[in-house]
Protein backbone atom coordinates (compact mmCIF):
# COMPACT_ATOMS: atom_id res chain seq x y z
CA UNK A 1 0.00 0.00 0.00
CA UNK A 2 1.76 3.10 -1.26
CA UNK A 3 1.31 6.38 0.49
CA UNK A 4 2.67 9.77 -0.50
CA UNK A 5 4.56 11.69 2.19
CA UNK A 6 3.74 15.36 1.64
CA UNK A 7 6.82 16.82 3.34
CA UNK A 8 9.39 14.19 2.40
CA UNK A 9 8.08 14.43 -1.20
CA UNK A 10 8.14 10.76 -1.99
CA UNK A 11 5.87 7.79 -1.73
CA UNK A 12 6.57 4.93 0.63
CA UNK A 13 5.04 1.58 1.35
CA UNK A 14 2.87 2.36 4.38
CA UNK A 15 2.97 -1.22 5.63
CA UNK A 16 6.77 -1.26 5.69
CA UNK A 17 6.88 1.93 7.76
CA UNK A 18 4.23 0.65 10.19
CA UNK A 19 6.14 -2.62 10.58
CA UNK A 20 9.39 -0.72 11.05
CA UNK A 21 7.72 1.35 13.77
CA UNK A 22 6.30 -1.85 15.25
CA UNK A 23 9.67 -3.56 15.39
CA UNK A 24 11.34 -0.58 16.99
CA UNK A 25 8.36 -0.18 19.34
CA UNK A 26 8.61 -3.83 20.36
CA UNK A 27 12.27 -3.38 21.26
CA UNK A 28 11.58 -0.10 23.02
CA UNK A 29 8.83 -1.65 25.11
CA UNK A 30 11.01 -4.63 25.92
CA UNK A 31 14.10 -2.67 26.91
CA UNK A 32 12.49 0.54 28.14
CA UNK A 33 14.29 2.73 25.62
CA UNK A 34 12.73 5.15 23.15
CA UNK A 35 14.19 3.46 20.12
CA UNK A 36 15.00 6.63 18.22
CA UNK A 37 18.56 5.38 17.76
CA UNK A 38 17.14 2.62 15.56
CA UNK A 39 14.36 4.54 13.79
CA UNK A 40 16.48 7.32 12.31
CA UNK A 41 19.12 5.07 10.68
CA UNK A 42 16.46 2.65 9.44
CA UNK A 43 14.43 5.44 7.86
CA UNK A 44 17.55 6.83 6.16
CA UNK A 45 18.33 3.33 4.96
CA UNK A 46 14.80 3.13 3.48
CA UNK A 47 15.47 6.29 1.48
CA UNK A 48 13.88 9.03 3.59
CA UNK A 49 16.01 12.21 3.55
CA UNK A 50 18.13 12.35 6.77
CA UNK A 51 16.64 15.63 8.00
CA UNK A 52 13.06 14.38 7.62
CA UNK A 53 14.05 11.11 9.29
CA UNK A 54 15.56 12.82 12.35
CA UNK A 55 12.68 15.30 12.63
CA UNK A 56 9.93 12.69 12.37
CA UNK A 57 11.60 10.05 14.53
CA UNK A 58 11.55 12.44 17.50
CA UNK A 59 7.74 12.44 17.51
CA UNK A 60 7.71 8.65 17.55
CA UNK A 61 9.79 8.71 20.74
CA UNK A 62 7.28 11.14 22.26
CA UNK A 63 4.48 8.68 21.58
CA UNK A 64 6.47 5.74 22.90
CA UNK A 65 7.29 7.49 26.18
CA UNK A 66 3.77 8.74 27.02
CA UNK A 67 2.31 5.52 28.38
CA UNK A 68 5.57 4.80 30.21
CA UNK A 69 5.45 8.15 31.98
CA UNK A 70 1.84 7.55 33.10
CA UNK A 71 2.73 4.10 34.41
CA UNK A 72 5.73 5.41 36.37
CA UNK A 73 3.68 8.32 37.76
CA UNK A 74 1.11 5.91 39.16
CA UNK A 75 3.73 4.06 41.12
CA UNK A 76 5.56 7.25 42.17
CA UNK A 77 8.61 6.62 40.06
CA UNK A 78 9.02 10.18 38.79
CA UNK A 79 11.08 12.85 40.52
CA UNK A 80 9.14 15.81 39.17
CA UNK A 81 11.59 18.39 40.47
CA UNK A 82 14.58 16.63 38.93
CA UNK A 83 12.60 15.98 35.76
CA UNK A 84 11.68 19.64 35.46
CA UNK A 85 15.31 20.76 35.81
CA UNK A 86 16.35 18.19 33.20
CA UNK A 87 13.55 19.30 30.91
CA UNK A 88 14.47 22.99 31.18
CA UNK A 89 18.05 22.07 30.28
CA UNK A 90 16.77 19.82 27.50
CA UNK A 91 14.58 22.50 25.92
CA UNK A 92 17.50 24.95 25.96
CA UNK A 93 19.68 22.22 24.49
CA UNK A 94 17.23 21.50 21.69
CA UNK A 95 17.18 25.17 20.72
CA UNK A 96 20.99 25.24 20.77
CA UNK A 97 20.94 21.97 18.82
CA UNK A 98 18.84 23.62 16.11
CA UNK A 99 21.52 26.29 15.75
CA UNK A 100 24.25 23.64 15.51
CA UNK A 101 22.11 21.71 13.02
CA UNK A 102 21.86 24.77 10.78
CA UNK A 103 25.60 25.50 10.99
CA UNK A 104 26.50 21.93 10.13
CA UNK A 105 23.98 21.87 7.30
CA UNK A 106 25.48 25.04 5.82
CA UNK A 107 28.98 23.59 5.97
CA UNK A 108 27.80 20.31 4.44
CA UNK A 109 29.08 18.16 7.29
CA UNK A 110 25.78 17.27 8.99
CA UNK A 111 25.69 13.65 7.79
CA UNK A 112 29.29 12.93 8.81
CA UNK A 113 28.81 14.53 12.23
CA UNK A 114 25.58 12.61 12.85
CA UNK A 115 27.30 9.35 11.92
CA UNK A 116 30.36 10.12 14.04
CA UNK A 117 28.28 10.97 17.11
CA UNK A 118 26.32 7.75 16.63
CA UNK A 119 29.49 5.68 16.41
CA UNK A 120 31.20 7.27 19.43
CA UNK A 121 28.11 7.41 21.61
CA UNK A 122 26.62 4.04 20.81
CA UNK A 123 30.03 2.39 20.73
CA UNK A 124 31.08 3.58 24.17
CA UNK A 125 27.69 3.15 25.84
CA UNK A 126 27.15 -0.22 24.17
CA UNK A 127 30.56 -1.32 25.43
CA UNK A 128 29.78 -0.25 28.98
CA UNK A 129 26.39 -1.94 28.85
CA UNK A 130 27.91 -5.13 27.53
CA UNK A 131 30.49 -5.19 30.32
CA UNK A 132 27.83 -4.58 32.93
CA UNK A 133 25.46 -7.17 31.45
CA UNK A 134 28.14 -9.87 31.21
CA UNK A 135 29.10 -9.14 34.82
CA UNK A 136 25.53 -9.50 36.08
CA UNK A 137 24.93 -12.69 34.09
CA UNK A 138 28.04 -14.16 35.72
CA UNK A 139 26.62 -13.24 39.10
CA UNK A 140 23.39 -14.91 38.07
CA UNK A 141 25.32 -18.07 37.27
CA UNK A 142 26.86 -18.19 40.71
CA UNK A 143 29.92 -15.96 40.50
CA UNK A 144 30.60 -13.71 43.45
CA UNK A 145 29.21 -10.19 42.90
CA UNK A 146 31.96 -7.62 42.61
CA UNK A 147 32.13 -5.44 45.70
CA UNK A 148 30.03 -2.41 44.84
CA UNK A 149 32.27 0.61 44.75
CA UNK A 150 29.41 2.76 45.88
CA UNK A 151 29.93 6.40 45.23
CA UNK A 152 27.24 8.96 45.92
CA UNK A 153 27.96 11.00 42.85
CA UNK A 154 30.75 12.16 40.59
CA UNK A 155 33.24 14.60 42.21
CA UNK A 156 32.52 17.13 39.46
CA UNK A 157 28.84 17.15 40.45
CA UNK A 158 29.75 17.66 44.08
CA UNK A 159 31.98 20.61 43.18
CA UNK A 160 29.20 22.64 41.53
CA UNK A 161 27.85 25.61 43.51
CA UNK A 162 24.23 26.09 44.69
CA UNK A 163 22.53 23.04 46.14
CA UNK A 164 18.92 21.91 45.97
CA UNK A 165 17.19 19.05 47.65
CA UNK A 166 15.71 16.42 45.32
CA UNK A 167 13.66 14.38 47.78
CA UNK A 168 12.41 11.65 45.49
CA UNK A 169 15.91 11.00 44.19
CA UNK A 170 17.42 11.21 47.65
CA UNK A 171 19.91 13.84 46.53
CA UNK A 172 21.25 17.16 47.76
CA UNK A 173 23.14 18.45 44.72
CA UNK A 174 23.49 21.51 42.55
CA UNK A 175 20.67 21.83 39.99
CA UNK A 176 23.35 22.87 37.48
CA UNK A 177 24.39 19.22 37.11
CA UNK A 178 21.03 17.94 35.79
CA UNK A 179 20.61 21.18 33.85
CA UNK A 180 23.86 20.56 31.96
CA UNK A 181 23.01 16.91 31.49
CA UNK A 182 19.59 17.83 30.10
CA UNK A 183 21.21 20.42 27.83
CA UNK A 184 23.55 17.84 26.30
CA UNK A 185 20.74 15.34 25.78
CA UNK A 186 18.59 18.08 24.21
CA UNK A 187 21.28 18.74 21.60
CA UNK A 188 21.45 15.01 20.82
CA UNK A 189 17.67 14.84 20.47
CA UNK A 190 17.59 17.50 17.75
CA UNK A 191 20.70 16.27 15.93
CA UNK A 192 20.00 12.55 15.99
CA UNK A 193 16.26 12.28 16.50
CA UNK A 194 16.83 10.13 19.57
CA UNK A 195 15.24 10.50 22.98
CA UNK A 196 18.58 10.11 24.67
CA UNK A 197 17.45 7.61 27.28
CA UNK A 198 20.53 5.49 26.66
CA UNK A 199 22.69 8.46 27.69
CA UNK A 200 20.40 9.83 30.35
CA UNK A 201 19.84 6.68 32.38
CA UNK A 202 23.52 5.76 32.91
CA UNK A 203 24.39 9.42 33.55
CA UNK A 204 21.66 9.71 36.19
CA UNK A 205 22.82 6.52 37.86
CA UNK A 206 26.55 6.98 37.77
CA UNK A 207 27.13 10.74 37.50
CA UNK A 208 24.29 12.10 39.61
CA UNK A 209 23.91 9.04 41.81
CA UNK A 210 20.10 9.02 41.71
CA UNK A 211 18.11 6.28 43.35
CA UNK A 212 17.30 3.46 40.92
CA UNK A 213 13.60 3.59 41.79
CA UNK A 214 13.07 6.96 40.05
CA UNK A 215 15.70 6.84 37.29
CA UNK A 216 13.64 5.31 34.48
CA UNK A 217 10.45 7.27 35.23
CA UNK A 218 12.31 10.57 35.49
CA UNK A 219 14.26 9.97 32.29
CA UNK A 220 11.02 9.14 30.45
CA UNK A 221 9.50 12.34 31.87
CA UNK A 222 12.39 14.36 30.46
CA UNK A 223 12.34 12.49 27.14
CA UNK A 224 8.61 13.13 26.72
CA UNK A 225 8.98 16.89 27.01
CA UNK A 226 12.30 17.25 25.22
CA UNK A 227 11.31 15.16 22.19
CA UNK A 228 8.10 17.21 22.02
CA UNK A 229 10.21 20.38 22.12
CA UNK A 230 12.56 18.95 19.50
CA UNK A 231 9.61 18.20 17.20
CA UNK A 232 8.44 21.80 17.61
CA UNK A 233 11.95 23.15 17.00
CA UNK A 234 12.27 21.04 13.86
CA UNK A 235 8.81 22.09 12.66
CA UNK A 236 9.79 25.74 13.00
CA UNK A 237 13.39 25.66 11.73
CA UNK A 238 14.03 22.81 9.31
CA UNK A 239 10.28 22.37 8.49
CA UNK A 240 11.08 18.71 7.99
CA UNK A 241 8.50 17.03 10.26
CA UNK A 242 6.37 14.78 8.07
CA UNK A 243 3.14 14.25 9.95
CA UNK A 244 2.05 11.33 7.74
CA UNK A 245 5.37 9.56 8.33
CA UNK A 246 5.12 10.28 12.06
CA UNK A 247 1.59 8.84 12.28
CA UNK A 248 2.63 5.67 10.43
CA UNK A 249 5.57 5.21 12.79
CA UNK A 250 3.37 5.90 15.81
CA UNK A 251 0.71 3.36 14.82
CA UNK A 252 3.40 0.71 14.65
CA UNK A 253 5.49 1.74 17.59
CA UNK A 254 2.80 2.27 20.25
CA UNK A 255 1.36 -1.16 19.45
CA UNK A 256 4.78 -2.79 19.33
CA UNK A 257 5.77 -1.15 22.60
CA UNK A 258 2.84 -2.73 24.46
CA UNK A 259 3.65 -6.18 23.11
CA UNK A 260 7.31 -5.67 23.92
CA UNK A 261 6.49 -4.66 27.49
CA UNK A 262 4.47 -7.86 27.98
CA UNK A 263 7.27 -9.90 26.47
CA UNK A 264 9.87 -8.29 28.76
CA UNK A 265 8.14 -9.81 31.80
CA UNK A 266 9.01 -13.35 30.77
CA UNK A 267 12.73 -12.78 30.05
CA UNK A 268 15.34 -12.28 32.76
CA UNK A 269 16.37 -8.58 32.84
CA UNK A 270 20.08 -9.49 32.77
CA UNK A 271 19.65 -11.19 29.39
CA UNK A 272 17.54 -8.29 28.13
CA UNK A 273 20.38 -5.90 28.93
CA UNK A 274 22.86 -8.17 27.15
CA UNK A 275 20.72 -8.24 23.99
CA UNK A 276 20.24 -4.47 24.11
CA UNK A 277 24.00 -3.96 24.52
CA UNK A 278 24.72 -6.18 21.52
CA UNK A 279 22.10 -4.38 19.45
CA UNK A 280 23.49 -0.95 20.32
CA UNK A 281 26.99 -2.14 19.40
CA UNK A 282 25.70 -3.57 16.11
CA UNK A 283 24.19 -0.21 15.12
CA UNK A 284 27.45 1.53 16.06
CA UNK A 285 29.44 -0.99 14.04
CA UNK A 286 27.20 -0.57 11.00
CA UNK A 287 27.55 3.22 11.21
CA UNK A 288 31.34 2.94 11.53
CA UNK A 289 31.47 0.76 8.42
CA UNK A 290 29.42 3.36 6.58
CA UNK A 291 31.98 6.03 7.43
CA UNK A 292 34.96 3.99 6.32
CA UNK A 293 33.60 2.23 3.26
CA UNK A 294 33.31 3.98 -0.05
CA UNK A 295 29.72 5.29 -0.06
CA UNK A 296 27.29 4.42 -2.85
CA UNK A 297 26.75 8.07 -3.54
CA UNK A 298 29.83 10.26 -3.83
CA UNK A 299 27.68 13.28 -4.67
CA UNK A 300 24.87 14.85 -2.72
CA UNK A 301 22.48 17.53 -3.86
CA UNK A 302 21.04 20.25 -1.70
CA UNK A 303 18.69 23.01 -2.75
CA UNK A 304 20.01 26.50 -2.21
Amino acid at each position, binding site marked *: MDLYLPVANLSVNALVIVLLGGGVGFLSGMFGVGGGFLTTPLLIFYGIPPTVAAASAASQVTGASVSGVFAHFRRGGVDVRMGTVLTVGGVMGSIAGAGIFRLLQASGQIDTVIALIYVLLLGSIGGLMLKEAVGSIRVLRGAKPAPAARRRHHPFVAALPLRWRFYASGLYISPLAPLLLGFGVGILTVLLGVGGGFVLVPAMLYLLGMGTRVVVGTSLFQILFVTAAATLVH*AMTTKAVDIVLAVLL*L*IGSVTGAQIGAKFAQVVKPEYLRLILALMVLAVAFRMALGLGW*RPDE*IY*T*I*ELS
Partner: protein
Amino acid sequence: MRRALALLLLAPLLLGATAAKPVLVPDVSRRNIQIAYSFTGAELLLFGAILYPGGREPDADHPADVVVVVKGPAQSIVMREKEKVAGIWVNAARTRFRSAPSFYAIASSKPIAQLVDDRTRAIYELGLDSLQLSPASGATAEEQARFAAGLVDLQRRQGLYYEAPGAVEITDGVLYRAAVDIPARVPVGRFTAETFLIRDGRVLAAAVREIDIRKSGFERFVEQAAEHDSLAYGLVAVALSVLFGWAAGSLWRRF
Protein backbone atom coordinates in the same frame (compact mmCIF):
# COMPACT_ATOMS: atom_id res chain seq x y z
CA MET B 1 3.75 54.37 -49.98
CA ARG B 2 7.10 53.10 -50.98
CA ARG B 3 7.25 50.89 -47.91
CA ALA B 4 3.88 49.37 -48.68
CA LEU B 5 5.01 48.67 -52.17
CA ALA B 6 8.15 46.97 -50.93
CA LEU B 7 6.08 44.88 -48.57
CA LEU B 8 3.75 43.94 -51.37
CA LEU B 9 6.69 42.84 -53.44
CA LEU B 10 8.16 40.89 -50.61
CA ALA B 11 4.92 39.21 -49.58
CA PRO B 12 5.18 36.18 -51.83
CA LEU B 13 8.71 35.61 -50.58
CA LEU B 14 7.70 35.87 -46.92
CA LEU B 15 4.73 33.62 -47.44
CA GLY B 16 6.89 31.17 -49.28
CA ALA B 17 9.39 31.13 -46.46
CA THR B 18 6.77 30.40 -43.79
CA ALA B 19 4.81 28.04 -45.94
CA ALA B 20 7.86 25.91 -46.67
CA LYS B 21 8.28 25.25 -42.97
CA PRO B 22 6.25 22.51 -41.35
CA VAL B 23 4.27 23.33 -38.23
CA LEU B 24 3.98 21.22 -35.08
CA VAL B 25 0.67 20.83 -33.32
CA PRO B 26 1.61 19.25 -30.02
CA ASP B 27 -0.49 18.23 -27.05
CA VAL B 28 -0.05 16.42 -23.74
CA SER B 29 -2.40 13.91 -22.17
CA ARG B 30 -2.60 15.87 -18.92
CA ARG B 31 -2.18 19.60 -18.37
CA ASN B 32 -2.52 19.14 -14.62
CA ILE B 33 -1.07 16.41 -12.48
CA GLN B 34 -2.45 16.31 -8.96
CA ILE B 35 -0.39 14.69 -6.26
CA ALA B 36 -2.69 12.98 -3.80
CA TYR B 37 -2.15 10.37 -1.08
CA SER B 38 -1.83 7.47 -3.48
CA PHE B 39 0.50 9.21 -5.94
CA THR B 40 3.23 6.86 -7.10
CA GLY B 41 4.12 8.69 -10.26
CA ALA B 42 2.29 9.37 -13.50
CA GLU B 43 2.60 8.59 -17.16
CA LEU B 44 2.50 11.54 -19.45
CA LEU B 45 1.60 11.02 -23.08
CA LEU B 46 2.99 13.56 -25.52
CA PHE B 47 1.44 13.45 -28.95
CA GLY B 48 0.62 15.63 -31.89
CA ALA B 49 0.74 16.17 -35.61
CA ILE B 50 3.27 17.55 -38.04
CA LEU B 51 1.55 19.83 -40.56
CA TYR B 52 3.45 20.12 -43.81
CA PRO B 53 2.71 22.86 -46.29
CA GLY B 54 0.35 21.42 -48.86
CA GLY B 55 -0.69 18.68 -46.44
CA ARG B 56 2.01 16.31 -47.69
CA GLU B 57 5.37 15.34 -46.48
CA PRO B 58 7.81 16.65 -49.10
CA ASP B 59 10.22 13.77 -49.04
CA ALA B 60 8.71 10.52 -47.84
CA ASP B 61 11.92 8.51 -48.26
CA HIS B 62 13.75 10.87 -45.98
CA PRO B 63 11.43 11.48 -43.00
CA ALA B 64 11.97 14.10 -40.32
CA ASP B 65 12.55 13.08 -36.71
CA VAL B 66 10.79 14.19 -33.54
CA VAL B 67 12.38 14.87 -30.17
CA VAL B 68 10.36 15.63 -27.04
CA VAL B 69 11.86 17.05 -23.86
CA VAL B 70 10.02 17.27 -20.54
CA LYS B 71 11.66 19.56 -18.02
CA GLY B 72 10.84 20.28 -14.39
CA PRO B 73 11.29 23.71 -12.82
CA ALA B 74 14.94 24.79 -12.66
CA GLN B 75 16.50 24.76 -9.22
CA SER B 76 19.55 26.37 -7.75
CA ILE B 77 21.51 23.59 -6.08
CA VAL B 78 24.72 23.01 -4.18
CA MET B 79 26.49 19.76 -4.98
CA ARG B 80 28.97 18.22 -2.61
CA GLU B 81 31.54 15.58 -3.35
CA LYS B 82 32.70 13.07 -0.76
CA GLU B 83 36.35 12.33 -0.32
CA LYS B 84 38.24 10.06 2.03
CA VAL B 85 39.90 12.16 4.72
CA ALA B 86 41.72 10.46 7.59
CA GLY B 87 39.99 7.15 6.96
CA ILE B 88 36.40 8.39 6.74
CA TRP B 89 34.33 9.71 3.88
CA VAL B 90 33.41 13.36 4.31
CA ASN B 91 32.06 16.06 2.04
CA ALA B 92 35.01 17.97 0.62
CA ALA B 93 34.65 19.83 -2.69
CA ARG B 94 31.43 21.65 -3.56
CA THR B 95 30.04 23.58 -6.44
CA ARG B 96 26.88 25.45 -7.25
CA PHE B 97 24.60 25.08 -10.24
CA ARG B 98 22.13 27.91 -10.57
CA SER B 99 19.75 26.28 -13.03
CA ALA B 100 19.67 22.52 -12.73
CA PRO B 101 16.37 21.09 -14.00
CA SER B 102 14.57 19.21 -11.23
CA PHE B 103 13.36 16.74 -13.84
CA TYR B 104 14.59 16.09 -17.36
CA ALA B 105 13.37 13.45 -19.77
CA ILE B 106 14.21 13.33 -23.45
CA ALA B 107 12.56 10.96 -25.89
CA SER B 108 13.42 10.85 -29.55
CA SER B 109 12.66 8.81 -32.62
CA LYS B 110 16.38 8.11 -33.12
CA PRO B 111 19.39 8.40 -30.82
CA ILE B 112 19.91 12.12 -30.40
CA ALA B 113 23.57 12.03 -31.43
CA GLN B 114 22.53 10.84 -34.90
CA LEU B 115 20.12 13.72 -35.34
CA VAL B 116 21.99 16.94 -34.54
CA ASP B 117 25.53 18.15 -33.91
CA ASP B 118 26.89 19.21 -30.54
CA ARG B 119 26.31 22.90 -31.12
CA THR B 120 22.62 22.46 -31.87
CA ARG B 121 22.31 20.14 -28.90
CA ALA B 122 23.81 22.77 -26.62
CA ILE B 123 21.50 25.48 -27.99
CA TYR B 124 18.31 23.49 -27.47
CA GLU B 125 19.56 21.51 -24.43
CA LEU B 126 19.03 18.20 -26.17
CA GLY B 127 20.49 15.35 -24.15
CA LEU B 128 21.81 14.86 -20.65
CA ASP B 129 25.33 15.94 -21.58
CA SER B 130 24.06 19.20 -23.07
CA LEU B 131 22.23 20.65 -20.07
CA GLN B 132 22.82 24.32 -19.36
CA LEU B 133 23.38 24.18 -15.60
CA SER B 134 24.86 27.70 -15.17
CA PRO B 135 27.67 26.68 -12.82
CA ALA B 136 28.86 29.37 -10.45
CA SER B 137 32.07 31.00 -11.57
CA GLY B 138 35.23 29.99 -9.77
CA ALA B 139 35.30 26.31 -10.56
CA THR B 140 37.56 25.08 -13.32
CA ALA B 141 35.99 23.67 -16.48
CA GLU B 142 37.23 20.21 -15.61
CA GLU B 143 35.73 20.41 -12.12
CA GLN B 144 32.42 21.65 -13.52
CA ALA B 145 32.32 18.77 -15.97
CA ARG B 146 33.00 16.28 -13.17
CA PHE B 147 30.22 17.67 -10.99
CA ALA B 148 27.82 17.85 -13.93
CA ALA B 149 28.49 14.20 -14.70
CA GLY B 150 27.94 13.38 -11.02
CA LEU B 151 24.62 15.24 -11.02
CA VAL B 152 23.38 13.47 -14.14
CA ASP B 153 24.44 10.08 -12.80
CA LEU B 154 22.75 10.64 -9.43
CA GLN B 155 19.51 12.00 -10.90
CA ARG B 156 19.42 9.28 -13.51
CA ARG B 157 19.50 6.59 -10.84
CA GLN B 158 16.73 8.41 -8.96
CA GLY B 159 14.66 8.27 -12.14
CA LEU B 160 14.62 12.05 -12.36
CA TYR B 161 16.78 12.35 -15.49
CA TYR B 162 16.58 10.01 -18.41
CA GLU B 163 17.03 9.57 -22.11
CA ALA B 164 14.75 7.36 -24.14
CA PRO B 165 16.07 7.09 -27.67
CA GLY B 166 13.56 5.46 -29.95
CA ALA B 167 10.63 6.13 -27.63
CA VAL B 168 8.91 8.51 -30.05
CA GLU B 169 6.73 6.71 -32.55
CA ILE B 170 5.94 8.49 -35.81
CA THR B 171 2.97 7.25 -37.82
CA ASP B 172 2.93 7.96 -41.56
CA GLY B 173 5.36 10.81 -41.05
CA VAL B 174 2.52 12.92 -39.65
CA LEU B 175 1.42 11.77 -36.22
CA TYR B 176 3.81 11.25 -33.35
CA ARG B 177 3.48 10.01 -29.78
CA ALA B 178 5.75 9.36 -26.82
CA ALA B 179 5.15 8.29 -23.22
CA VAL B 180 7.17 9.87 -20.42
CA ASP B 181 7.15 8.52 -16.88
CA ILE B 182 6.94 11.09 -14.10
CA PRO B 183 8.26 9.48 -10.87
CA ALA B 184 6.75 10.18 -7.42
CA ARG B 185 9.87 12.05 -6.32
CA VAL B 186 9.38 14.99 -8.66
CA PRO B 187 9.11 18.43 -7.13
CA VAL B 188 5.93 20.39 -7.73
CA GLY B 189 5.76 23.31 -10.12
CA ARG B 190 5.41 24.15 -13.78
CA PHE B 191 6.86 21.60 -16.17
CA THR B 192 7.41 22.22 -19.87
CA ALA B 193 7.04 19.72 -22.69
CA GLU B 194 9.03 20.83 -25.74
CA THR B 195 8.70 19.17 -29.11
CA PHE B 196 11.29 19.56 -31.87
CA LEU B 197 11.02 18.54 -35.49
CA ILE B 198 14.47 17.79 -36.88
CA ARG B 199 15.76 16.98 -40.33
CA ASP B 200 19.30 17.04 -41.72
CA GLY B 201 20.70 18.25 -38.43
CA ARG B 202 18.47 21.31 -38.37
CA VAL B 203 15.53 22.11 -36.13
CA LEU B 204 12.64 22.79 -38.49
CA ALA B 205 9.97 23.54 -35.93
CA ALA B 206 9.57 23.68 -32.18
CA ALA B 207 6.58 23.99 -29.86
CA VAL B 208 6.06 24.11 -26.11
CA ARG B 209 3.22 23.01 -23.83
CA GLU B 210 3.08 23.52 -20.10
CA ILE B 211 2.08 21.04 -17.43
CA ASP B 212 1.33 21.95 -13.83
CA ILE B 213 2.21 19.43 -11.16
CA ARG B 214 0.64 20.27 -7.85
CA LYS B 215 -0.17 18.66 -4.55
CA SER B 216 -3.89 18.52 -3.98
CA GLY B 217 -6.26 18.12 -1.09
CA PHE B 218 -4.79 16.84 2.15
CA GLU B 219 -1.22 16.68 0.83
CA ARG B 220 -1.38 20.30 -0.26
CA PHE B 221 -2.88 21.30 3.09
CA VAL B 222 -0.15 19.49 5.06
CA GLU B 223 2.65 20.99 2.97
CA GLN B 224 1.20 24.50 3.27
CA ALA B 225 0.71 24.11 7.01
CA ALA B 226 4.27 22.84 7.51
CA GLU B 227 5.60 25.76 5.52
CA HIS B 228 3.45 28.65 6.72
CA ASP B 229 1.92 27.71 10.09
CA SER B 230 4.91 25.83 11.38
CA LEU B 231 4.16 26.43 15.08
CA ALA B 232 0.59 25.11 14.81
CA TYR B 233 1.81 22.25 12.64
CA GLY B 234 4.44 21.30 15.20
CA LEU B 235 1.90 21.47 18.02
CA VAL B 236 -0.46 19.18 16.11
CA ALA B 237 2.38 16.73 15.50
CA VAL B 238 3.19 16.68 19.23
CA ALA B 239 -0.48 16.39 20.21
CA LEU B 240 -0.93 13.47 17.82
CA SER B 241 2.04 11.60 19.22
CA VAL B 242 0.89 12.12 22.82
CA LEU B 243 -2.64 11.04 21.88
CA PHE B 244 -1.45 7.90 20.11
CA GLY B 245 0.86 6.95 22.95
CA TRP B 246 -1.81 7.53 25.57
CA ALA B 247 -4.57 5.75 23.62
CA ALA B 248 -2.42 2.69 23.00
CA GLY B 249 -1.39 2.57 26.64
CA SER B 250 -4.94 2.76 27.99
CA LEU B 251 -6.35 0.36 25.39
CA TRP B 252 -3.81 -2.31 26.15
CA ARG B 253 -4.25 -2.08 29.88
CA ARG B 254 -7.78 -3.44 29.47
CA PHE B 255 -6.61 -6.70 27.97
